[in-house]
């Protein structure tokens, strides 16, 4: 509970992440918050908070000054964490509201019925600044307080969306046009990632256990899997196409299973190969760092090899194994975007469509849910890992 109070006694050190957040935040206020565009492909004119609304500028400035003061002044650790959480949340949520409300007002004044408000540099800098502060907060508190804050922020933005406050924002416009497809692409994205990570768990965890138990297989397994990791992802996707196309030509039953040179199959296989290393490595390492005295105790009490593995080694290693799966999952959610290039579904479709049409709004519309999925999955794992760490539940 009191782990941070020692930090207040310690000599002053620059808190780099928070300092970075302050700089980004300041840039966010000065740069254009959003641009007003007459139509989809219009370059638009930028508008910063300073020129749009003085009261909101003051509010944002306070949210940046508070962390700046935190860096300079020694305060109680609890108060400090609370201030980080508060200012961080405002810096994330407020730009959405401003783009929604101030943007719409601007459109009305200019009488641009088909105009749209596109978030610009200032918007993204403020978001980044807020995200840094929130993650600094999560790092400083125990348990799932951090997860709770992230959930609250997401809910807040979602509520504004449901209340119709964000309708004039450019990527929301793009979303409205594709509402039907959006959900199915999210599901496709998740399905591809889940199948890849799921099979990587089914292969990687046993491979890690076998490498731990039998020295001979360790070298070959690790060199193959880390070799795979060095192939650039785009190349790996490409490499999958030729052999799979050949196989499905050769064996028609594979085609009936949906295995072709392009589409889901090569994407899932490539993503699977990518997820393998973090899962394998964490499983192996977590088992090999178990205190030998604990294993000796287990054996000495008469555990069989099987009991030793399932009642002792795996449970003790579980938190580290799970964090390997966490890394693989977050990474795969990102990589799945690229899968759209070889004809698999997913949110990457929107991104590459946007690239093709030179429409930044559409790209952003594809990227935002990817980031949100990655954050949510990361927090879910953080929650479960916290639960399986021995003693985590009854530490005072």
């Amino acid at each position: 509970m009191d782990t941070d109070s020692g930090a207040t006694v310690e000599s002053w050190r620059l808190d780099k992440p928070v300092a970075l957040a302050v700089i980004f935040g300041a840039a966010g206020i000065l740069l254009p918050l959003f641009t007003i565009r007459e139509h989809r492909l219009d370059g638009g004119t930028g508008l910063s908070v300073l020129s749009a609304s003085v009261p909101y500028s003051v509010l944002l400035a306070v949210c940046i000054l508070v962390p700046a003061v935190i860096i300079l002044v020694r305060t109680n650790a609890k108060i400090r964490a609370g201030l980080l959480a508060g200012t961080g949340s405002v810096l994330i949520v407020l730009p959405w509201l401003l783009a929604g409300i101030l943007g719409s007002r601007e459109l009305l004044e200019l009488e641009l019925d088909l105009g749209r408000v596109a978030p610009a540099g200032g918007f993204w800098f403020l978001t980044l600044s807020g995200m840094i502060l929130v993650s600094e907060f999560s790092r400083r508190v125990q348990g799932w307080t951090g997860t709770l804050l992230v959930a609250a922020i997401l809910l807040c933005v979602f509520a504004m969306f449901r209340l119709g406050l964000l309708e004039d924002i450019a990527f929301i416009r793009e979303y409205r046009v594709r509402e039907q497809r959006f959900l199915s692409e999210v599901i496709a994205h998740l399905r591809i990632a889940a199948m890849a990570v799921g099979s990587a768990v089914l292969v990687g965890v046993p491979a890690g256990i076998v490498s731990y138990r039998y020295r001979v297989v360790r070298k070959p397994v690790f060199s193959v899997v880390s070799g795979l990791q060095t192939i650039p992802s785009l190349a790996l996707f490409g490499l999958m196409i030729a052999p799979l196309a050949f196989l499905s030509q050769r064996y028609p039953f594979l085609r009936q299973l949906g295995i072709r040179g392009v589409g889901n199959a090569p994407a899932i296989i490539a993503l699977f190969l990518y997820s393998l290393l973090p899962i394998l490595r964490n499983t192996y390492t977590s088992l090999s760092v178990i205190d030998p005295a604990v294993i000796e105790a287990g054996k000495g009490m008469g555990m069989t090899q099987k009991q030793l593995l399932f009642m002792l080694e795996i449970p003790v290693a579980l938190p580290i194994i799970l964090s390997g799966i966490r890394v693989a999952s977050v990474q795969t959610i990102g990589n799945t975007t690229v899968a759209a290039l070889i004809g698999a579904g997913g949110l990457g479709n929107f991104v590459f469509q946007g690239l093709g049409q030179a429409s930044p709004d559409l790209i952003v519309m594809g990227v935002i849910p990817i980031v949100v999925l990655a954050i949510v999955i990361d927090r879910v794992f953080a929650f479960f890992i916290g639960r399986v760490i021995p003693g985590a539940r009854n530490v005072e």
Partner: protein
Amino acid sequence: MIEFDRVVKYYGTHRALDGVSFTVPDGCVTVLIGPSGCGKSTSLKLVNRLLEPDDGYVRVNGRPVKSFAVEELRRGIGYVIQSAGLLPHMTVQDNIGLVPRLLGRDKAWRRARARDLLDLIGLDPHAYARKYPSQLSGGEAQRVGVARALAADPPILLMDEPFGAVDPLNRETLQNEFISLQRKLKKTVIFVTHDLDEAVRVADRIVLLQDGLVIQEAAPEELLGRPSNAFARDFVGTDRALKRLGRFSVSDYMSHDTRRVGTKDHASVPVDATLREALSRILAIPSDEISVIDAQNRTLGSISLEAIRRAGCGGESS
């Protein structure tokens, strides 16, 4: 009974045990003692087959340990390891209940047993049953290690420096608890230590090892009174006569003649004290004699410096 019969054990080319033979009688505490690296832990692990000998035999009740199914053998032998070795993902009560669980005992039985054992080793079950090993001090963890070894009520107990991580004061308390526990339980115990005072306190027999060889196998009084060679003499130290007095009880050497003691004399010694304590008290008073009292402060008789000296000399080779 456990027998070591010309046991040889190599680690690579290093000979850790070089033809070790000794016997461990039933119901007694046999202490293995010797300097660090002399092969004490190695000997223990040969009993529950965490190691296999390169030559010779280890027998339990006349049967070579090799002829037992290894898991069955281990579940019948309580094992307290040098660094406690509690399983970090289990609570104290689940750690204690582990061997019973392997033997198929149900949860309620294991919980009740864990609580009884926590009581027995002097830890409050309410406060400790649900703690995790990372929340215990070194001494508490070692006590839990002892409780875990006792959980399935095995006839044999192997204890590798069970009180190693405890401060001297608590260590003495634990040793006394162990002694009274052993009086009740009558286990066949092999107890490893490199602390001679601890050995003298808990042992029925002592096996002194050096570089994988048995130097002397004897009762503590004998080891202290007649160390068999220069190494043994060095090992037991120059105060061996004093240590030896620690093995004798005042009640065996006192005189029951109550008239001989001056009633005005305040100095006294409890009847269940050792001769070592009696000597220490006598040296602090001007007299050669001190009265012996019972728990109710009644004078039972007296003990004299002369009687202590005679007890100390008994069997001494000079």
